[in-house]
């Protein structure tokens, strides 16, 4: 058995520093001191005590344990891990934006409102919608906004008996979770042999209890729903509305507008499609776009034009609360810093640039599909959109699983694809290359995947014990859940005053 290198032990923040050290010195107050409130002053603030260098070295060293887009290929399906332009970071940190207080009057904040107004307008144009709100904090909150709007819409028409939401079995888990949070009953719609949703099953549920159908298109198999128009017509004919999950919008930029297809409300993921960074798991940003009949229900406030501009002067922007708004989804105005980044990105792309994004995302995914087909089973074998789903299993290598393939990919310097999702594909490997990866990177990834497919048959233990070259091996997840340790041991010293 190979002797595996052990990583340098990584200290915890509470193991570092020493009493009396600090990483920041603050000026002493330049005013007379007031009495502290009696009985309300804490005895002990058990935070660590580090020098500036200790703290920054610790966090820098930790960063080096991460795989990231800037350090390597990250084909995590459904997450659109494309390059995040550095200029976005510069733009969001401009003094006028970063020091802007959210409660300053609109007249003082015309720059911020202009960014939000144009982003609303551009998202309307890109998605084919009548109105957009930038409030939702992330995709899941955009979904919540959408479902709450649908609920309010039905209630406003005296149709509160509509209590059912239809969700394909390939959908993201957020879809059923959001519907349940909003008080709806979830009915799952199966997929057919071509990877489309089963239209007959859908139609059988289209009755006067139908509130909404939640559609992800392209679906999570990376396939464009071939029956999309028929499905939407059936839902509308029954008086239901169609919610679009915009997680896969990267495939549709300049290709098709969800609003044109008849989708009533859709959330965008600025952190997927529009290059705002994923940040190690957020902040996301999940604006919602709606057709005209839902515009009055949007979460607010949104930005409108108060006074039209003239040749010399731009328009005056102001806040506007839609008349039947479902209300506020978060404090203030949404993830504004992310709005600036998405604005900057769209400004650099224009219409042709966005179409090129979708085209090359789809080109890259199809290239992977044809090159990996054969060595891997492609369960739904047709032209895909921005991602391709493979099976990570072979009848003649029964002890190898998708997880093993995922872990082995790390040895080649790649982040694994999403695995075990969508749930309807056994041992799924969901690969989304994105448009910002070159053919050379894809070729290297293909070579690694083909090597792994061979190893699965010749030396399966190499996969089962992977990764080998990373600083850390597989983690014991069962131990983590059974013997919960969710924070460092925190010194609870007794105050000297007691």
């Amino acid at each position: 058995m190979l002797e595996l290198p052990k990583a340098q032990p990584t200290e915890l923040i509470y193991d570092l520093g020493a009493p009396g050290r600090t990483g920041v010195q603050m000026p002493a107050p330049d005013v007379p001191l007031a009495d502290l409130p009696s009985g309300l002053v804490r005895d002990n603030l058990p935070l660590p005590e580090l020098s500036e260098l200790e703290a920054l070295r610790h966090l820098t060293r930790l960063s080096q344990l991460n795989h990231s887009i800037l350090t390597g290929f990250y084909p995590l399906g459904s997450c659109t891990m494309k390059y995040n332009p550095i200029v976005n970071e510069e733009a969001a940190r401009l003094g006028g934006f970063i020091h802007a207080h959210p409660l300053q009057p609109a007249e003082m904040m015309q720059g911020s409102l202009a960014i939000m107004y144009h982003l609303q307008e551009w998202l309307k144009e890109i998605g084919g919608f009548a109105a957009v709100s930038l409030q939702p904090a992330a995709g899941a909150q955009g979904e919540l906004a959408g479902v709450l709007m649908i609920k309010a819409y039905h209630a406003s028409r005296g149709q509160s008996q509509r209590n059912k939401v239809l969700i394909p079995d390939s959908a993201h888990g957020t879809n059923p979770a959001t519907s349940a949070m909003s008080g709806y009953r979830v009915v799952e719609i199966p997929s057919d042999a071509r990877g489309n949703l089963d239209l007959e099953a859908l139609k059988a549920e289209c009755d006067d209890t139908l509130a909404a159908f939640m559609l992800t298109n392209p679906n999570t198999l990376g396939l464009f729903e071939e029956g999309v128009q028929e499905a939407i017509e059936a839902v509308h004919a029954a008086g239901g509305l169609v919610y679009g999950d915009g997680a896969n919008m990267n495939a549709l930029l300049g290709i098709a507008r969800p609003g044109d297809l008849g989708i009533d409300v859709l959330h965008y993921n600025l952190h997927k499609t529009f290059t705002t960074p994923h940040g190690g798991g957020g902040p996301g940003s999940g604006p919602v776009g709606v057709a005209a009949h839902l515009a009055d229900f949007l979460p607010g406030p949104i930005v409108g034009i108060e006074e039209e501009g003239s040749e010399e002067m731009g328009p005056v922007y102001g806040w506007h609360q839609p008349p039947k708004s479902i209300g506020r989804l978060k404090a203030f105005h949404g993830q504004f810093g992310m709005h600036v980044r998405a604005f900057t990105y769209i400004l650099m792309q224009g219409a042709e640039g966005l179409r090129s994004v979708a085209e090359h995302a789809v080109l890259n995914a199809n290239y992977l599909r044809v090159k990996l087909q054969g060595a891997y089973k492609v369960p739904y074998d047709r032209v895909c959109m921005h991602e391709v789903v493979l099976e990570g299993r072979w009848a003649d290598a029964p002890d190898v699983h998708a997880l093993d393939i995922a872990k082995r990919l790390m040895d080649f310097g790649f982040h694994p694809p999403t695995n075990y999702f969508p749930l309807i594909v056994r041992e799924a490997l969901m690969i989304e290359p994105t448009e910002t990866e070159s053919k050379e990177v894809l070729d290297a990834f293909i070579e690694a995947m083909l090597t792994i497919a061979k190893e699965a048959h010749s030396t399966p233990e190499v996969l089962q014990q992977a990764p080998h070259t990373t600083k850390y091996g597989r983690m014991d997840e069962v131990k983590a859940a059974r013997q919960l340790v969710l924070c460092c041991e925190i010194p609870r010293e007794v105050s000297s005053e007691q």
Partner: protein
Amino acid sequence: MTFVPHTERDRQQMLEAIGVKTIADLFEAVPQKFRFPKLNLPAPLTEMEALGELKGIAEANESADDLVSFLGAGAYHHYIPAGVDSILRRGEYYTAYTPYQPEISQGTLQAIFEYQSLIVALTGMEVSNASHYDGATALAEAVNMSHAIHRGARNKIILSPGIHPQYRAVVHTYEDGGDLQLIGEDLDLSAGPDALIELIDEHTALVCVAYPDFFGRVYDYTKLAEAAHAKGALLAVSVNPTALGLLKPPGEMGADIVTGEGQPLGIPLSFGGPYLGILTTRNQYVRQIAGRLVGETVDSRGQRGFVLTLSTREQHIKREKASSNICTNQGLMMLAATTYMSLLGKSGLRQVAESCYHKAHYAATEIAKLKGFGLKFKDAFFHEFVVECPIPAAELNLRLLELGIVGGYALGAEYPGMQNCMLLTVTELNSKEEIDYLVETLAEVAHA
């Protein structure tokens, strides 16, 4: 500016491998009449042009940095040590995603584990999640949690009128139309926590208060916690973490859930977002908490490591039975707060909190001496206080602005009876000179 690296030769080779002639052939599944719409967007710009345009737009803001500001009300100007942004700028952090693959995500995972630890230390609680969207949504999740903890058997939620009005609005968005009843918001603003005690009964799932409250006031909630527990209800406290650098943490008062807005911990104002939701609880309720949790474990080589854990609560496993639909947290903002707390540490955060406290008290004392001005409440406060002015606060703010001062939040917009009231905020960034200038200017413009 394109970020697509493909050359014409790459495209040809790839199309050939796929077996189609043109890229357009890949889109035949899209209904023809909707295929390739013409988008009406501005012509694309280069990076140089785009940044130039953005600079122009940013300059159209009169941001608080160019002026003297006493505006807070849920978003605070604080000094952010340079080290914080140097960490946020590391591509290894900001271009990674949720750490699903722990072998190559230990940086983010350990940072979250340390964030959870620092927040536990600061709040005096036992468990923190990996962060939430913001202070308002964290409070809404606390309401959902309390409903789940009582298995839906209790349907009354008491919301103190001292909670930020926008936070209460978000709770309404999340809960209206559901089976929870939200009460308490119409209580007299001067009544304090004792008035809430009278509302607690055996149907109460949760009592929600803020610390400091929206008006800056601080109370010891120990009695309130006892009263809630006596009736089987829970107590949630929404905090400003800066205040906890100085004040007794709600964990010591008996709170069951502590939420809060983490923006003051090293996150810029940025016109209201992205910010950071704090969500913590007691060990016994860990299975009802929303959002990601990171736990310690060991790897196959015996090394200590960290993983996302208890994911059986979450939407990607439980789907419609999940404890919340939340997916992403506020990863990068969590990192900002972790860096900020690591740099400031025990003494630094206390210094910031004390500086805010003393400066705010100096300002309040001086303003209260002015003719026609007075403090609205007598209670102890942290770094915000309500001033009753001789003229409407909105009007006063316009006059202050002409002299380069962003005044406090005019309360009349949310509280019809408080047209003349202004919520002023003072932090360590406000010098004595600025405070004196505010006091002089108030005296001058109020009677102009």
